[in-house]
């Protein structure tokens, strides 16, 4: 038999055997580890700020996967750049590789927090969520409110990040004390979803 034909048959055998070999990414459902969940919540390692996420996206952090858990219609309307849409009811069917950093967000954060618990129950431990969701993204990244007396360095950092994603900071009233360290960005009075 010609070598080319043997190679073709070999490839076919390996390919047709693949469905019986299991998944590429082995994310097996596990029992809910309540202790580790409570510890992660207590330590704050369960979430990440919208600004931190923006820096990760801008810096092309390796293995970053941004997951929007809202409905496809809401996702089409507005979403964080590079995000993929996995509605919360589809989350259990999705594949998550061990080397990836999964960042979950929703409109205001509540659903993302619940999605985080779902992923933990599936054994996905490398997930975090954005507590304020897309609303935080707008307030902290796209249109952050900078105090009028913000330092030049802080202003440049915030402006650079905001401009990178097509936004522009707003200038608010002056803040007392050490602006750069104590209150880097003035938040609105929106009620947090989570």
């Amino acid at each position, binding site marked *: 038999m010609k070598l080319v034909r043997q190679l073709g048959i070999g490839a076919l055998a390996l390919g047709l055997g693949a469905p019986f070999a299991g998944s590429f990414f082995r994310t097996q459902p596990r029992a809910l580890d309540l202790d580790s969940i409570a510890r992660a919540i207590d330590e704050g390692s369960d979430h990440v700020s919208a600004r931190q996420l923006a820096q990760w996206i801008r810096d092309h952090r390796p293995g970053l996967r941004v997951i929007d858990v809202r409905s496809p219609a809401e996702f089409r309307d507005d979403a964080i750049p590079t995000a*993929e849409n996995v509605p919360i009811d589809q989350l259990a069917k*999705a*594949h998550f590789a061990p080397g990836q950093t999964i960042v979950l967000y929703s409109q205001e954060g509540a659903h993302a927090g619940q999605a985080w618990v779902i992923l933990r129950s599936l054994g996905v431990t490398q997930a975090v969520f954005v507590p304020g969701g897309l609303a935080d993204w707008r307030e902290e990244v796209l249109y952050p409110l900078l105090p009028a007396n913000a330092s030049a360095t802080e202003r440049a950092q915030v402006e650079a990040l905001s401009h990178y994603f097509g936004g522009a900071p707003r200038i608010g009233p002056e803040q007392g004390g050490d602006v750069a360290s104590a209150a880097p960005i003035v938040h609105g009075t929106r009620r947090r979803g989570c």
Partner: protein
Amino acid sequence: MNDLLMAGGIGAAFGCALECAGLGDPPKLAGQFYLRDFTVLKVMLSAMLTAMLGAFWGGQLGMFDSAAFYLPDTYLLPQLLGGMVFGLGFVLSGLCPGTSCVALASGRIEGAATMLGLFVGVLLVGLAFPAIEPFYRSTPFGSLTLQRLTGLPDGVVVALVTVVAVSVLAWIAKREARP
């Protein structure tokens, strides 16, 4: 340093394989677009098939962590446009970036001309990047794979791609065997 040496070795082997397959020859490459010569399709399909089966079974056998492989993000519209520009350059010059290096290394002037065009293109895109960045980042879909797109298990996708690739390769072999 070891990584760099390995990358250099793999690059040299890749270049040798391309040259051995005759892909440093522009008329041969352009022939693919006119359906006269199927060398490009044969080389690319067999390379993708080998890489896919190697990645899948290597991971299954614990030789490496397939999950750690870098999956580039999909930006649908900019990548569609980029693909069309790439294809246009490919058919005009008869070379793609990899084969232009091979052609240059084999002493073909077309390789030098294509590489010059490639670097000019990279420079122009770099200079224009602030203006085109919103488009560059538009229509993001994250790491889009056939598994995510179809919802099928990984093994089934591997099997389907294998069947399609082997069928196409067999069809080409049959076509070439005709007098």
